[in-house]
C-alpha cells in the first residue's frame, strides 16, 4: 500500500462500524454468560462446576481457530506478498496467544476441584500448552527480527509450520496417554447445555474477530507511522 493510501486510511476517524461491532460483541458476551448460567441445571457428576464449561470450551475453540487464521494469512502473504496479510497474521497470532493462555488458566481452574490437582497431562491441556509455546516462539521471532521483509517471510514460514503441527501434537500426546492407559477427560456435552454453549461460542467468536481487527488496525497505523517517518527523513534532507 502506498504511503498516501495508508495515511488517508489512518487519518479517517475510526470506522464506526467496527466500534459498534465491538460493543455488540461484549454485550452479547455478557448476555450469553448470564443466560447460560441461568438456564442450565447442575450436572449429575460435576454439579455447578459444569458452568465453567461456558468460558473454558469457547476459549478452547478460539484457541484452535486463531492459529488457523494465522495459517490462512501466512499462506496468503507468501502467495501475494502484501504487507496487510503479514500484519493480519501477526495480529491473529497475538490474539491466539491470549486465548491459549486463557484456556490454560481455565483448564487449571477446572482441573483443581475435579481431579484435585492443578495440572493433568491430559491430551487437550498439554497440546494447548505446546501450542501456547509455539505461538510465543512466533511472537519472539517477530520481536527479534528488524528487517520488515525478512520478518514477514520468516513469520509466515514459522506460522505455517506451527499451525500444521497443532493436530500432530494433539494426536501424539493422545496416543502417548492411551499407550499408558490414562483416562481422557469427559468429552460429551449434555443436550441441556448445548444452547448455552453455542451462545457463548458465538460470543467468543465475535470478541476474537473484534480483537484481531483492532490489533490489525493498530499495526497498520504503526506501519503508516514508519512510512511517514521514512518519508520525512528523506524529504527533510532535501531542504
Amino acid at each position: 500500500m502506498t504511503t498516501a493510501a495508508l495515511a488517508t486510511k489512518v487519518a479517517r476517524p475510526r470506522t464506526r462500524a467496527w466500534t459498534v461491532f465491538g460493543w455488540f460483541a461484549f454485550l452479547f458476551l455478557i448476555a450469553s454468560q448470564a443466560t447460560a448460567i441461568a438456564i442450565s441445571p447442575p450436572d449429575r457428576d460435576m454439579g455447578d462446576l459444569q458452568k465453567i464449561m461456558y468460558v473454558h470450551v469457547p476459549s478452547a475453540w478460539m484457541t484452535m481457530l486463531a492459529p488457523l487464521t494465522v495459517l490462512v494469512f501466512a499462506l496468503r502473504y507468501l502467495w501475494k506478498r502484501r504487507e496487510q496479510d503479514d500484519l493480519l497474521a501477526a495480529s491473529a497470532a497475538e490474539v491466539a496467544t491470549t486465548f491459549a493462555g486463557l484456556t490454560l488458566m481455565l483448564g487449571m481452574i477446572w482441573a483443581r476441584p475435579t481431579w484435585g490437582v492443578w495440572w493433568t497431562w491430559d491430551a487437550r491441556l498439554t497440546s494447548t500448552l505446546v501450542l501456547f509455546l509455539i505461538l510465543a516462539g512466533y511472537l519472539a521471532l517477530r520481536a527479534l527480527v528488524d528487517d520488515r521483509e525478512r520478518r514477514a517471510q520468516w513469520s509466515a514460514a514459522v506460522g505455517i509450520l506451527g499451525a500444521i503441527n497443532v493436530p500432530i501434537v494433539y494426536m501424539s500426546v493422545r496416543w502417548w496417554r492411551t499407550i499408558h492407559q490414562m483416562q481422557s477427560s469427559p468429552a460429551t456435552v449434555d443436550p441441556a447445555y448445548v444452547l448455552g454453549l453455542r451462545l457463548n461460542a458465538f460470543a467468543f467468536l465475535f470478541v476474537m474477530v473484534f480483537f484481531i481487527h483492532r490489533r490489525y488496525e493498530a499495526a497498520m497505523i504503526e506501519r503508516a507511522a514508519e512510512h511517514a517517518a521514512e518519508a520525512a527523513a528523506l524529504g527533510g534532507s532535501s531542504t
Partner: protein
Amino acid sequence: MALRDEWRRARAIAWKDLTTERRSKAGFNSVVVLAVTILVLFGFALGPDTQAIRNAAAGEIWLSALFAGVLAFNRSFQLELDGGALDALILYPGARRAIFAGKLLGNFAFVALMLTIVIAVGVVLFQVRVPAEWPSLLAILFLGCVGLVTLGTFYAAMASRSRAREVLLPLLLFPMLVPVLLAAMEGTKALLGGDIMGDAGAWARLLAAFDVVFLVATLLAFEFVIEV
C-alpha cells in the same frame, strides 16, 4: 537432469561442511563431551536410585542429544555466515533446496554419530541392558534423528541469522519437536524395556510419518526462509 544436479550440489555442500568439521575437530568433540556431561547431570537429577535412572534412560538419552544437538544446528550455518558465503551460494540456480538438503545431510551425519556415542555412554551409566531387538532400536534412533535434524536445520537457518540466536533456536525448535521427541522417546523406552506391549512398532510408524510430513514441509518452506 536437474534433480541429479541438485543432488550433486547437496552432496558437495554436505561434504564441505563435514570436512571443515573434521579439520576443526574441536567442534564435534566439544559437542559430544557436552552431551555426556548432560547425561551425567541427569544421573544426579534422578539418582542415586539406579532403578529411577534406568527407567528414564530413553528420555535422558534423547534430551542430552537434543540439548547438545542445538549447538550443532546453529553452527552449521555459522560457517557461511562468518564468511558471507551464504549470499553467494543462493545465487547459483536451483541451489536453495540443494543448500537445505546439503545442510540436512551434514547435520544428520553429525548428530547421528553423536547420538551413537551418547547411547553407548548412556547404556553404561544407566545400567541399561541392550535389548535383543537392537536393530529395531537402531531404526528408531535413525528415524528420530531424521526428525530432529530436519526441524533443527530449518529453524537454525533463521535463528543463526538473527539476534539472540542462542535462545531463539531452542525457543522455536523445542515445542515443534514434541511429536518427534515423544515418539522417539516412547519407542526407545519400549524397546529398552523389552517391548512387552509391542508398542515400539506403532511409535516407529508414527515417527516415520512425522518425518515425512516435516521433511516435505521444511523443504517447501526453506525457499522462503533463505531468500531474505
